[in-house]
């Protein structure tokens, strides 16, 4: 049997290559499907990925993560710092042939600010969008907003007439379960046009023959067949067997196999996302621990001991197979405010950690529950498991409760967990985004993902001040100050920055985009 399989294996690679299909068609698979084609109904990665092929924003992040012109060619604040002016691209048409004008931009951004839109938070500061002329648009914000452009990279422009004639002037009420024309049909300006769509099973895109970017982008892919394949092993199998050309999420353990396979390659790049643990530092007593009347996490020495007990390098080496960047801060390197010093990995020192525990009065340890997702981050559950072992070595008995993200995240939002894993991506590439959600005291407008119960009114004031600070140097200084407090208090235990792994045919030349957003118009084939 063994010999049979061995000989089968030898023969297999050749067959796999023979099965390669038409080079112009790109067969693409990833774990999850786009939730809807309505570009404003869901603010979610995979949804945006598909939308980016069909629709275009005014400006977007290219394969290197740099903001580059898309439908806008130029943009700058006007004399009034609260008004940004955008020059639009000439000669662009929608897939149905309608011309692209300023009124479409006004219409689309207003649409994205409607109550049913999931993108409205990104435009929270926008007061008004006005068409200056056919190819110029002004966006007026509520006070100066220096980072407005980075909020626009996923805001797609729809055709006003198409939307009106199909009754989709309003975004789909996704939560309310509305089904609109825009959910299954799309009319963008992008490089690819929707040809066929069966949600969760298959989507086919064809190249837009009238795309404005012809000549500017390689556009070597003429057809895209997108299939969500949920099961990781099946997905890898599909790539190995040559049934797909490109998968967006290669499990780290299979990198070697994919890499070793003839005709396949894995491309890797750091992702704009950091994985860390949050701890309940604020409550007087913990529900999930075995210490009565006290919160051991409230003691900074305990938190420092925990930080020291985590062997991030071992996690990188074994759990992540080298595919992670250990860090000491909950901020990816792409983000404004990041410094090498902040990123320095805290040294692992079990002996010292034990001393700290003893000093804090927990020489005999204590027990606590760690909540962990099992379907959200790369090897999330395995990381938590490893952490359980490492914390066990300094006497903290951790019970691991791993569950799907759908049940994990509410625990954080509802303050039902004392110790949890979270990963945070920063679409604006700015520290303010992190502070707003993770550091500010939890309340109506701020701190909705701050599960640590950490509350520092002074810090809150500083965070709130960032939004309207137009002096970038001063703003950066504020950011640095906030970071030093956050780091000093050790309210989060940072682990690592995630690394993206795209698996593809060797013949495909395609760099990894740090936001995990492949734009296929950039894709080229090796000649």
């Amino acid at each position, binding site marked *: 049997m063994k010999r049979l*399989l061995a000989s089968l294996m030898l023969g297999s690679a050749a067959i796999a290559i023979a099965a390669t299909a038409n080079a112009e068609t790109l067969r693409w698979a990833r774990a999850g499907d786009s939730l809807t084609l309505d570009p404003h109904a869901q603010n*979610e990665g995979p949804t945006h990925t598909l939308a980016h092929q069909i629709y275009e924003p005014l400006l977007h992040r290219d394969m290197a993560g740099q903001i580059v012109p898309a439908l806008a060619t130029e943009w700058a604040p006007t004399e009034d710092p609260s008004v940004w002016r955008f020059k639009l691209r000439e000669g662009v048409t929608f897939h149905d042939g309608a011309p692209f004008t300023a009124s479409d931009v006004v219409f689309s951004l207003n649409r994205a600010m409607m109550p049913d839109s999931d993108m409205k938070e990104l435009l929270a500061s926008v007061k008004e969008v006005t068409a200056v002329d056919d190819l110029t648009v002004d966006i007026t914000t509520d006070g100066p907003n220096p980072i407005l452009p980075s909020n626009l990279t996923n805001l797609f422009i729809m055709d006003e007439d198409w939307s009106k004639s199909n009754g989709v002037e309003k975004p789909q009420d996704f939560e309310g379960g509305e089904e609109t024309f825009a959910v299954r049909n799309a009319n963008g300006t992008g490089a690819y046009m929707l040809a066929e769509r069966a949600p969760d099973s298959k989507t086919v895109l064809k190249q837009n023959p009238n795309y404005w970017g012809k000549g500017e982008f390689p556009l070597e892919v003429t057809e895209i067949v997108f299939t969500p394949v949920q099961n990781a092993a099946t997905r890898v199998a599909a790539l190995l067997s040559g049934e797909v050309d490109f998968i967006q999420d290669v499990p780290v353990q299979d990198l070697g196999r994919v890499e070793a396979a003839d005709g396949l390659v894995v491309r890797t790049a750091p992702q704009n996302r950091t994985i860390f643990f949050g701890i309940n530092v604020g409550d007087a007593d913990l529900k999930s621990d075995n210490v009565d009347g006290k919160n051991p996490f409230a003691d900074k020495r305990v938190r420092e001991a925990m930080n020291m007990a985590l062997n991030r390098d071992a996690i990188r080496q074994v759990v992540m197979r080298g595919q992670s960047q250990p860090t000491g801060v909950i901020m990816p390197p792409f983000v404004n405010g990041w410094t090498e010093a902040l990123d320095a990995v805290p040294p692992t020192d079990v002996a010292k950690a034990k001393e700290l525990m003893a000093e804090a009065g927990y020489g005999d340890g204590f027990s606590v529950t760690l909540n962990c997702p099992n379907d959200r981050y790369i090897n999330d559950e395995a990381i938590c498991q490893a952490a359980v072992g490492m914390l066990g070595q300094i006497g903290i008995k951790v019970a691991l409760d791993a569950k799907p993200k759908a049940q994990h995240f509410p625990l954080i939002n509802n303050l039902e967990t004392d110790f949890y894993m979270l990963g945070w991506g920063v679409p604006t590439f700015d520290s303010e985004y992190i502070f707003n959600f993770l550091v500010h005291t939890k309340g109506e407008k701020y701190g909705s993902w701050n599960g640590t119960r950490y509350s520092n009114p002074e810090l809150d004031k500083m965070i709130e001040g960032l939004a309207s600070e137009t002096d970038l140097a001063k703003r950066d200084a504020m950011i640095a100050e906030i970071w030093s407090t956050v780091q000093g208090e050790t309210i989060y235990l940072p682990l690592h920055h995630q690394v993206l792994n795209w698996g593809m045919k060797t013949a495909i030349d395609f760099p990894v985009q740090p936001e995990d957003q492949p734009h296929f118009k950039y894709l080229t084939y090796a000649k």
Partner: protein
Amino acid sequence: MLAFVIRRVFQSLIVLLVVGLVAFSLFRFVGDPVENMLGQERTQQDIDRLRTQLGLDQPFPVQYWRFLKNAAEGNFGVSYRQGRPVTDLLIERAPATLELAFVSGVFALVGGIALGIYTAIRKSGWLAQFVMTASLIGVSLPTFLIGILLIWIFAVELGWLPSFGRGETVAIGWWTTGFLTASGLKALILPSITLGLYQMTLIMRLVRSEMLEVLRQDYIRFARARGLSERAVNFGHALKNTLVPVITVTGLQLGSIIAFAIITETVFQWPGVGLLFINAVQFVDIPVMAAYLMLISFMFVAINLIVDLLYVAIDPRLRVDRAAAAK
């Protein structure tokens, strides 16, 4: 006969009602849909608005009554996750699952009955003994492992068959079929085997033991004593009697094929209702889950109803006008 049908339909309705209650009420305990539907930037107002919108703030009986009323009209509400009517989703996905279940069922039935007959007639032959022992391996391996192994061997290592999906499909009205394209047919092979293997072994073992039982009956001895050929005895007499009890169990088995498709569809990324259900569970998409359970129960009940009718058609003893008298 009519009374029999009416009674079975009535019982089926009760079953469906209970299943509906179970389906609807139990899933209320799994997570909170509102939390999952809103993104990371959401406010308390969003939550409240959505709860009201979904009717989740109403008391339980009200929600159940509304569910039942809607279900009776074929309206299972709208998927929280996909934002589309669940009925549409099910109709869209059903062909994939039904085709898979159909092929698996045929595979299980034909293979099971053929092997069952073979192993019963050649009771002590080495091949029959081997098949019997091998069939135990079939029931000792979890389905997901079989699927993974098949993918590994036939898709990854040999590259003969696709590892996932339905291949090319052809739409005939709202029904999409994989039967009409080469890739569609190829794509059916591995999932069907994975799904049908367990049922096939069960049916095979059942057919074998029933057939052995039948072959011991007096009327078989009498048929032999009348000089009928082995062929006539085995296939003309024994097989028919074997199938009577087999039909019932087979009905149950085929019903569970649709349910067990969950695992196969997960492993093979088969775009059917099982995959829809698993996705729904992960996103706590209550309408989809509830509708799925109702659908499964409905199919199960329908299959059993058909089986019961088939039973009556095959066994003349059940067609007697008078109830079996007490001696």
